[in-house]
């Protein structure tokens, strides 16, 4: 299988995209549900927890080198364990991606194309992902490295232009529903950064082992800052409990921008950020799922399964009967996938290191 290498910057931005897209879409309202006004505190708390998990997994790199969990799993428990780990990783990615894909299509229908069938929107998205797949990881990462920073700049514009609408009183009472809600909710909402697992899968695509360490930390920082700014702007504009009511917080924010009498209707800014980042996110995710499956089964070429994966993912994304069911499925998928996503990059390297030590002792 062709092993395309990507630079540190590209890897950082690929990861930052994966981690930030949820913040741009529906995730902020989940955080407001648990912590109310204190959502911004919860984000800092969640990012510290994820940071700790990331640092622990980075520590294991010293022992494991440029091996992803799949290669390590093979060394630990041969083919069956590799298949089990590979399947788990693919399922986590699918859980993260399928719900996002459905939510994206639903939101496009609500906001942009109310008369177009949602299935049609999803098929078009799948077609666009296919084009992205054909270009490969290197091309997707390069395009992402160009467009994702532009998306962040546009998001920055939204945050700045809203300045006039901000009401500082909205962040009070400062602890929202209370410290215990933040602590419990933070652990539950760690799922928002569960895409960090992709860092481990991308290890073989980097030049040296120093790259994932740096890019992981930088991407988490970018995603934390993005989510923090979005949540803070959102709650400065909308008082609780409205913050947990709106489906798309950033869209809702963009509708409130008024820079003078004539400069209004900033939704176009949001739509640009939204569509570009989602397309790149989807292309990267399909690459990751196909890559994991191909490496799990030692396939020489993953092109064939790519299209199968896209078809499968689209079919699954179409399953929830309504947007309410899709949101429910998203919550369930996150609750199941997140703990495994954080555990795998720590547990498998530890098992690998233990096995290697045992081997060394025998030798």
């Amino acid at each position: 299988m062709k092993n395309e290498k990507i630079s540190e910057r590209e890897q950082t931005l690929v990861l930052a995209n994966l981690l930030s897209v949820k913040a741009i879409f529906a995730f902020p309202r989940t955080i407001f549900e648990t912590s109310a006004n204190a959502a911004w505190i919860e984000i800092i708390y969640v990012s510290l927890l994820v940071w700790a998990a990331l640092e622990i997994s980075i520590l294991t790199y010293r022992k494991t080198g440029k091996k992803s969990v799949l290669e390590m799993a093979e060394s630990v428990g041969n083919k069956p364990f590799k298949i089990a780990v590979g399947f788990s990783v693919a399922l986590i990615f699918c859980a993260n991606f399928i719900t996002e894909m459905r939510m994206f299509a639903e939101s496009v229908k609500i906001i942009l194309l109310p008369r177009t069938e949602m299935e049609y929107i999803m098929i078009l998205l799948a077609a666009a992902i296919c084009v992205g797949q054909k270009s490969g990881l290197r091309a997707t990462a390069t395009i992402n490295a160009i467009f994702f920073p532009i998306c962040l700049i546009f998001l920055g514009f939204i945050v700045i232009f809203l300045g006039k609408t901000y009401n500082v009183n909205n962040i009070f009472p400062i602890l929202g529903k209370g410290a215990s809600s933040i602590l419990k909710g933070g652990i539950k909402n760690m799922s928002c950064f569960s895409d960090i697992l992709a860092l481990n899968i991308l290890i073989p695509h980097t030049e040296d082992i120093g790259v994932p360490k740096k890019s992981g930390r930088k991407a988490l920082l970018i995603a934390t800052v993005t989510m923090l700014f979005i949540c803070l702007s959102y709650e400065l504009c909308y008082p609780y409990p409205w913050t947990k009511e709106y489906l798309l917080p950033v869209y809702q924010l963009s509708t409130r921008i008024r820079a003078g009498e004539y400069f209004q209707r900033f939704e176009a800014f949001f739509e640009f950020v939204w569509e570009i980042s989602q397309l790149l996110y989807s292309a990267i995710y399909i690459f990751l799922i196909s890559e994991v499956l191909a490496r799990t089964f030692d396939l020489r070429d993953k092109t064939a399964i790519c299209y199968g994966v896209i078809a499968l993912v689209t079919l699954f994304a179409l399953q929830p009967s309504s947007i309410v069911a899709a949101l429910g499925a998203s919550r369930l998928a996150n609750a199941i996938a997140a703990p495994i996503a954080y555990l795998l990059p720590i547990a498998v390297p530890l098992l690998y290191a233990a096995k290697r030590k045992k081997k060394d002792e025998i030798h």
Partner: protein
Amino acid sequence: MLLKGRKKMKFIKIAIIVVLLVCFASCKDSNEPETLGYVVAIGIDEPEEGEEGYDITLQFANPDKISGGSGEAGGDGGEGSIENITVPAPDIYSAINIANHIISKKFVLSHTKLIVFSDEIAKKGIKNFLDSINRNPEIRPNIYFAVSKTSARAFLEAVNPKTEVNPVRYYTMLFENDYSGFIPQNMGQDFYLFYDSEEKSPVMPLCSIVNTEKGGDYPDYGYQYKVEDYTAGEIRENAGGVQIAGMALFRGDTKISETGDTKTEIFNLLTGEYQSSYVSYYFSKTPETPVTVMQTQKKRPKIAVSTKNSAPKIVVTLFLEADISSSEEAFLIESDIEAFSLEAANALKEQATAFFVETKALGVDIFGFGSYAKRNFATIDEFSAYNWKEAYKNAEFEIKVELSVKRTGLLVRG
């Protein structure tokens, strides 16, 4: 054979591109502008006797009359740029559905700027409309809500934007006039964000058609001295048409009272939404002639709320700047600027305190002091337990006014 294969591939690629181009064009959702009826205002009235639901008036733009500008030769100004249709319906969307079958246009709400509720509807409660307005992605957050003292239909039918070609701009100019404090400066979205809130009670502008039989009262206060305290419709004018002045006070989603234009201006000052306007002040040295100033709010008011005991203490500091526009010819205001500033500040304090006491008696914190009170609590539960709405009825109010007269126009006498 190879060439044939390449040609075949080329054909397939071109075919895919053509299919994708057609698919991505989103023609299915496109609408020609001339097929759309842009609803600019909606009026909601009680139904006629014996009927259920509401009488809903849709005011829509007439694009043929809007084309070009008001300054263009031969233009009719804004006359005829809007049309009205009233239909009985259980809600706004049903009304649009019915209207779509009457008028040969597809009505859209993407340019809706105003929703007018009749007084009777406002007194009964408007909660049901708020949910439907909030859900629809077509309706933008920067629309205005207003309560009409006459029927909403009569108000909308009397609207005749003579000076504005674009009806949306007409409403924007009316409701967002930076040089008038007589209309509460808040968007419709503020209403539905706070109607169910523990920290603030909402207000809405009052509108009406001109009713010259009624007049406002001259208040005894020195703020807006000799200016009648009008509500919409009461201002004597010869142009006729519609008026927007004063505001309706709500408890939850139900209108409980209304105030005139002077108090509305004070409301804007206390909430920091006031920009600037001409204000006439009583001055003891010229009791017959008010001193008129161009008053500007220099910065947002400083508000501190103490909730140490069950009677909260509210301290507000206003920062105002004034330029003298007119005074009694025989008196040299320039020599007594300090004394005037002090008297003007006291007049404003007195009027603001009286208005605060009025809202306290009604039990509605329209100024949103509760939002500042929240700062004293760590959690939402603690704030809820304090019961701000009840505590507000016992609140103490202190207002400080820093009013400085900066300029005296083109004259500096003395």
